[in-house]
């Protein structure tokens, strides 16, 4: 399984970033091999709107199975859902490796809808 985790850091000890659309980067992790790499998410820095949609399109290119993030808004959720990517939300204080562990243990629940409101109603 391939997972994308939102983070501001660059390794497994970095904290999970609670933002999805405006997360600075994604850590892309293979559960089978334990190999990971970083994917920049800077295309959204100056976007007034639609950051979540762009983030979702951006990580779809990496063919990930699921996303772990803090919060996911309605447009980002709809886009990820249409792309067949599952969304798991996690407390912001966890590190990336802790979040992966929690997912493996089945401690993260899969979102069935956005867990926060959009910024522009």
């Amino acid at each position, binding site marked *: 399984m391939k997972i994308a985790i939102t983070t501001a850091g660059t390794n497994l000890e970095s904290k999970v970033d609670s933002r999805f659309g405006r997360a600075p980067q994604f850590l892309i992790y293979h559960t089978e091999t334990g190999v990971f790499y970083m994917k920049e998410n800077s295309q959204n820095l100056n976007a007034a709107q639609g*950051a979540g949609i762009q983030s979702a399109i951006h990580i779809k290119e990496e063919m990930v199975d699921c996303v772990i993030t803090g919060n996911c808004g309605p447009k980002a959720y709809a886009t990820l859902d249409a792309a067949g990517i599952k969304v798991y939300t996690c407390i912001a204080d966890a590190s990336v490796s802790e979040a992966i562990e929690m997912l493996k243990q089945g401690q993260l629940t899969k979102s069935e809808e956005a867990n926060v409101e959009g910024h522009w109603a």
Partner: protein
Amino acid sequence: MKIAIASGKGGTGKTTISCALAFAATGPVRLLDCDVEEPNSHFFIQPKIEQTETVFSLVPQVDPEKCTGCGECSRVCQFSAIASLGKKTLVFPELCHSCGACARICPTGAIEETQKEIGLLEIGRHGEVEFVSGLMNVGHAMSPPVIRAVKKHALEEGLTLIDCPPGTSCPFVTAVKGCDIALLVTEPTPFGLHDLKLAVETLRELGLPFAVAVNRANGENNRISEYCSEENIPLVLQIPEDRRVAEAYSRGQTLTTVLPELRETLAALPEKLRALTNHSTETRKEREKLAAL
């Protein structure tokens, strides 16, 4: 002539001055309330509404039968309003700016533009004053298409007064564009001056002539008049700070109800502004001539 009554800061008196100018006008006049997120000129004009018009904007609709999931639409869209995700293509109408690029670029003709209702125009009059007001639908976030619909009602001949939305972003730019001159209404407060400067910078960028009106003029006017003289901006109107103006406003009465002595100045203002447009056209031509040398 089209005069945009605008400001950077909100609450400086755009509507107060627009409505007073409309009632003081000596010839054919039409007031367009382009503050479509919160129009309020009708409180003062008290028009009899004779006609309404629905405003639509175009949004894409994808035919899943024809869509091949190539993603061209998603890549061309500057607003993330359409997302191609393999077999599925999602449309987010609230982000769409109705540019039509997605429909044009689609190689299989799978995208059709459909009408979405976004606002309403009210058209009427009070005596000699003709009136058009736009109101954006609740839940819709982009006002420029509604503003453009109101502005289509500008008079060919005669005086058109455009009560603009505050700020200096897209709604402001849409409202002032194509006008002959902008009258920037400000107040002698630090905020008033600060936002006046933003509006001046924006209008200079647009190449539109402008003049300044000071509302609630009191002992602190120096702030505005010094700025205007430094920047060579004509200060064409001063409305004194007077509690009676605020009281009249709260009752839906116009400025000249309590300050009738202003009527003459207001009636003469459009001609004064017209002279400024001629002047600035000349200076612009001179500047272009110099640049060409």
